[in-house]
Structures are given as structure tokens and as C-alpha cells.
């Protein structure tokens, strides 16, 4: 497949790195909220609500809590958003070829995505507040539980494609049967892992409103909060793009990207509205007992398929 390419400077500032990504993040947040609302038989927000939220937050006064390191308090949301935006450069966003690409970029992307969660944890620990401290602990606990299975789930297609480069996996995926059929377990884990990463319900124990107010972000009010939210929205887009590229037959053009990610978002919204919130111990237990095991089984199956497959076909 021939993905289109974009000039580097434009790639950084407008598409796919800068404005486009922020805008699509807001749009996807809107679609997610609207879908959940409709699943719950509610009206849902108007289309500009996420943007209005961000604008309002940016205009608000930001109060640095006493006892928190001011520098960290300001820089952490920036790092979080930056990491998320950087990660976008390596993924085939909107069906275009990744702006930058090198061998092993899938690992870099995944770690850039995790940087956001680390920033969240640090931000919570920094703001010396009881709720954010518990939120931060839970955020990091959750990070350690979903990260390994999520990684395993995204490595599956990489191993199948025999490459650690996102663009190559994308190309490989579009020439094959959809890997959602050949690796269903991997897809499930990747999907649920993404929800854990974004702390969406039912994995929202780190920011469980009824227990610890807003978790790690309790003390964030203005700009910082807006940046964290934007970061999460961007991660949602990137995560959906990755899963769609890996498991749903690659992304060849913008239209392909749009319908595949939206279908994934529909599934994610459905999962978000179906369950009661899991306690943090339930989340960890589920990931390590079921998620990691299934991930390993999937990996084994792929390895067997990859190395034994040619041998078996060679027999006949």
C-alpha cells in the first residue's frame, strides 16, 4: 500500500503532530461521551463541549497547592502532552504514512504513551494531597498491571509481521487476513489495555470520583488539568489508531482510518457503560491472572504458528 507522506515541519506543527491531533482528540472525546450518553439513553454533550471545557480550563486560575514543587507542578502536564504528541509522529494517523519511522519505533511509541501515565502518577505524588496521593498510588499500580499484557498484545502483530516498525506492520496487516480474526485474544487484551491506560470506566479506580474525588489530578484546576485532558484525548486517538492498524487490516487512507477507529470507539464506549467500576485489587488481579496469561498464550500461539507453520505446510 502507498500511504501519503507529509513534509516534516508541517508534520510537527499541523498534521499529524500538532493542531490536527489536538482537534481530533477533542472530536474523539466528544464521540466517546456522546456514545456513552446514548448507551445510557441520555442526550449527551453538544459537539463543541470538549473544546469549550478546554477553553474554560485554560482561562481558569491555576492554584499551586502549598507543599508541592511548583516547577514540577507546571512542567508535568506539559511533558505528558508532549509525550503523547510525539508518539503520534510514529503512527499512521488518518491513514497517512507515519511522519517519522525507524526500526523499533513500536517500542518507542508504547513508552511515549506510558510517559503520560508516569506523569500523572508523579503529578499526584507531587501535590501532597490525600486524594491525589491515593490516586497516584492507584495510577502507578494500574500502570504496572496492564502494561505487560498490553505490550504482549501489541507485540503479537509485530512478531507476525516480523518487524518492529509500525509502518511495516501496517503494510503487512493490510495484506493479510485481519488479525482480529487470527489473533482474537490479542485484540481483546489490546482493547481492554487501552481502556486501562486511559483510565476509562470500569478501570477508573485511579480517578474514582466517589472515593477519591479526581485521583491524582485533584489539585489541578486550570491549565495543567486542561493539558492532562488533552493528553488523554490524544492518547485515545493514538491508541485507537495503533489497534486499528495492527488488528483491523491496516490503515490505507483517511476514510479507512475513520471508520475503523470509530468502530473501535463504539466498542470501547459500550465496554465503558457495561460494567461497574473495578476495585484496584480486582483490576490488578484480573490483569495478572487473566490478562497476562492470555497474552502469553497468544504469544505462544503466534510463535508456534510462525515457526511451525511453514514447517507444517512444508510437510504437505
Amino acid at each position, binding site marked *: 500500500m502507498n500511504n501519503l507522506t507529509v513534509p516534516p515541519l508541517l508534520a510537527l506543527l499541523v498534521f499529524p503532530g500538532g493542531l490536527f491531533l489536538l482537534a481530533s482528540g477533542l472530536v474523539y472525546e466528544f464521540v466517546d461521551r456522546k456514545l456513552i450518553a446514548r*448507551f*445510557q*439513553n*441520555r442526550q449527551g454533550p453538544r459537539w463543541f463541549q470538549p473544546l469549550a471545557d478546554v477553553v474554560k480550563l485554560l482561562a481558569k486560575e491555576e492554584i499551586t497547592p502549598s507543599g508541592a514543587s511548583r516547577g514540577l507542578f507546571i512542567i508535568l502536564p506539559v511533558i505528558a502532552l508532549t509525550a503523547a504528541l510525539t508518539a503520534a509522529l510514529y503512527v499512521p494517523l488518518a491513514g497517512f504514512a507515519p511522519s517519522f519511522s525507524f526500526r523499533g519505533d513500536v517500542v518507542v511509541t508504547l513508552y511515549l504513551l506510558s510517559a503520560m501515565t508516569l506523569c500523572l502518577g508523579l503529578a499526584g505524588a507531587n501535590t*501532597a494531597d*490525600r*486524594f491525589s*496521593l*491515593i490516586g497516584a498510588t492507584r495510577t502507578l499500580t494500574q500502570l504496572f498491571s496492564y502494561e505487560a499484557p498490553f505490550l504482549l498484545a501489541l507485540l503479537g502483530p509485530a512478531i507476525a509481521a516480523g518487524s518492529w516498525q509500525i509502518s511495516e506492520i501496517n503494510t503487512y496487516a493490510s495484506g493479510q487476513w485481519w488479525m482480529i480474526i487470527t489473533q482474537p485474544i490479542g485484540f481483546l487484551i489490546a482493547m481492554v489495555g487501552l481502556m486501562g491506560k486511559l483510565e476509562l*470506566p*470500569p478501570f*477508573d*479506580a485511579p480517578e*474514582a*470520583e*466517589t*472515593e*477519591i*474525588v479526581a485521583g491524582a489530578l485533584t489539585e489541578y484546576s486550570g491549565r495543567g488539568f486542561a493539558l492532562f485532558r488533552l493528553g488523554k484525548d490524544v492518547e485515545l486517538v493514538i491508541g485507537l489508531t495503533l489497534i486499528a492498524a495492527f488488528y483491523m487490516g491496516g490503515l490505507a487512507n483517511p476514510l479507512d482510518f475513520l471508520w475503523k477507529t470509530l468502530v473501535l470507539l463504539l466498542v470501547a464506549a459500550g465496554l465503558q*457503560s*457495561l*460494567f*461497574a*467500576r*473495578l*476495585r*484496584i*485489587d*480486582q483490576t490488578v488481579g484480573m490483569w495478572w491472572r487473566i490478562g497476562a496469561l492470555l497474552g502469553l498464550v497468544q504469544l505462544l500461539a503466534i510463535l508456534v504458528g510462525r515457526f511451525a507453520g511453514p514447517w507444517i505446510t512444508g510437510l504437505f
Partner: protein
Amino acid sequence: MEKTSDGKFIVPIGAQHPALKEPGHFEFAVEGEIVVGASVRLGYVHRGIEKGCENRNWIQAMYLTERVCGICSHIHATAFALATEKLAGVEVPARAQAIRVLISELERIHSHMLWLGVAAHEGGFDTLFMYSWRDRETVMDLLEAVTGNRVNYSANVIGGVKFDISPEQKETILKGIEFLEERSQHYMEVVTTDETFTGRTRGIGTMPYDDAIRLGAAGPTLRASGVARDVRTDSPYAGYKLFPVNIITDTAGDLDARFIVRIKELFESYRLVREILDNLPEGELSIRVPRRIPAGEAIQRVEAPRGELFYFVQSEGGENPSRVKIRTPSLLNWASITNFAPGHKLADMPMILAGIDPCFSCNDRMITVRDVRTGQVSNLEDLKIR
């Protein structure tokens, strides 16, 4: 971080907290995620309703007591009216008593549906919350169509009720009840079978039979521990003599059991509403009660949606009550939180709190007044002299 002197980490819930829709202050001492101690502090919404009753005539006082609670308003007015009628020595017509029961049962349906949503929300199950509140609109519309008001129904007068149930209203109620029954069946299935939800309710906040009695719990919280105690059957008031209620109990005593008991009570209420509508006794709607109530004292116990509600009313023969004392069921249930919260995860606290269906502003009553500066303690008699 702030720690208590014995090195425990305290997580405050309240007085302002997203889990609580009314102000109350809870302090949970935690070790990691495990709660090791719990304490409760109330009194943020004391409104002086008991004192306010003394300055109003009997009729106005009844409307004031109706405002003790926003959810179970009718039952408060009923309790006050029943106590006053007892003092006046009048016999309220059977039809009026039946209509009072009808409204109380509709109110119970409304209250339990509301609780179901709140409890689900505390457990992070917002979909159940939205659906149960959507369906709760049905019963609120029914109440509006019958009484003319959505919240403070003002169905009572001292000596009876204000309105009759017309055949069209009966049809509307039956239709609404049918829809609600079908939905409740579904919610029963959800709360008892959904794995993620039962994971949050089974074995959480378990209160054994003996402790439930020892701590003096009330209402569905008590009945979920297997104690068959319900004022509607133990000492039937108003129309409950004509329309007996079956007590719903469960033996488990945990949150799951409280869900089951409350939803089963919904079915019992549906049955009762149908029975009352079909067998509404003939007769007058109200009886004349003198404006001056003879001197005396009366107590009245009724079963509010949250449990036993207690009214003490005293008259000195005038146009005003001379003393009204209200004890609401939430006050009886706090001990079940502070005693059974330790040992659970912090994440379970909102659900355990919601499990007793707390109503904060209802239970904030004053017994003695302590002057913070002088330390002087005044009781009711002292205050009256001033």
C-alpha cells in the same frame, strides 16, 4: 502528610465530597487501601424544624414536618398527622387511610429507585444509575398526576387526605406500575447476576443478625441481616391494618442482600398499590379536627423507606404543638458503618455508606446546646426559659 498521633493515614470523606450529596463528615483511617478505622461527624444541616413546629399551628406544623426529608416527605407528614389525630381522639375514615398508604407506597417505590441509582453510582456503575433514574421519573410522574406535586406531595390534612383517586388516575397508576415492575425485574437480574457488580457487593459490609440487633439498625438495612422487623406489620398504622404487608428479609447481611431486600420491597409495594387501588374502601376523605388539640402526649411510629420513623408530639391544649421530637431512621444506621467499615478496602467505603441509604439532613437533631466559649450546656428546659 497529615497523620494522626498513632501514625495512621486519614482519608476524609465529606463534609463536601462527590460521594455525598449531603454534608456529613467521615474519617477513614487507612493502611494502604485497607480501612482500619472509621468515625462519623454529623450536624452540618441542622435546621431547627422541631423548634419551628412549636411556633406554628397544628396544620402549618404538619407542612413543616413534611420538609424534614425531600425523599420521604409524605411519611413525615403522615406520622405527624397520625400523632395529632391520636391526641385529638378522632377516627380518620378508612378511605383516607388507604389513600395515605397508597401515597406512602408510591413514595417508597420512588425512594428505593432513587437509592438503587445512587448506590450503583457509588460503585461506578453509571449505566444502572441512569436507567434506574430514568424509570424513577415514571413514579414521580404518577405522584404528580395523583397529588399535583412532584416532591412535597402535601396529600394529608389533619384528619384525612385532600383528594380522591379517580378511575382515570387508577388506570394511569396501574399502567405505570406495570412498566416499573418489568424494569425492577430486570434490575433484580442485573444486581444479582452481573459479575462486576456482585464483585463490589457480595460480602461487603456484612452485618450479622446479632450485631444488627445490638446496634439497633432499622429498615431494609436491618431486614437484610435477617431481622424480620417492620413497623407496617409490627404495629400497623393508617391503612396497613386493611392491607397487610409481607416482611422481606435476607440472611446475608451484606450489600448484595440490601440490594435484594430493597428491590423485593419494590415488588411488595407494587402488589400493595394494586391491592389498594382494587379495594379502595368507600367513605369520606377527611374528618373535622378541632383547631385546639386537647393536652396530652402521643408517639407515632411509621415505616419510612429507610426504616422506622418515630414522632413524639406533645400538646398543652393550644393551637400549637408544645413539643415535637423526630427520630429518623438514618440515625439508627450509622453504627453499622463505623462498626463494619474497618477491614474493607477504601474503594468499598462509598458503597457501604450508600448501602444504608443515608439521609443527612433528616437526622440532624439537637438534644443539648453547648456554648463553645463558656462550655455551658443547656437543655430544652433552659432554652425555653430564655
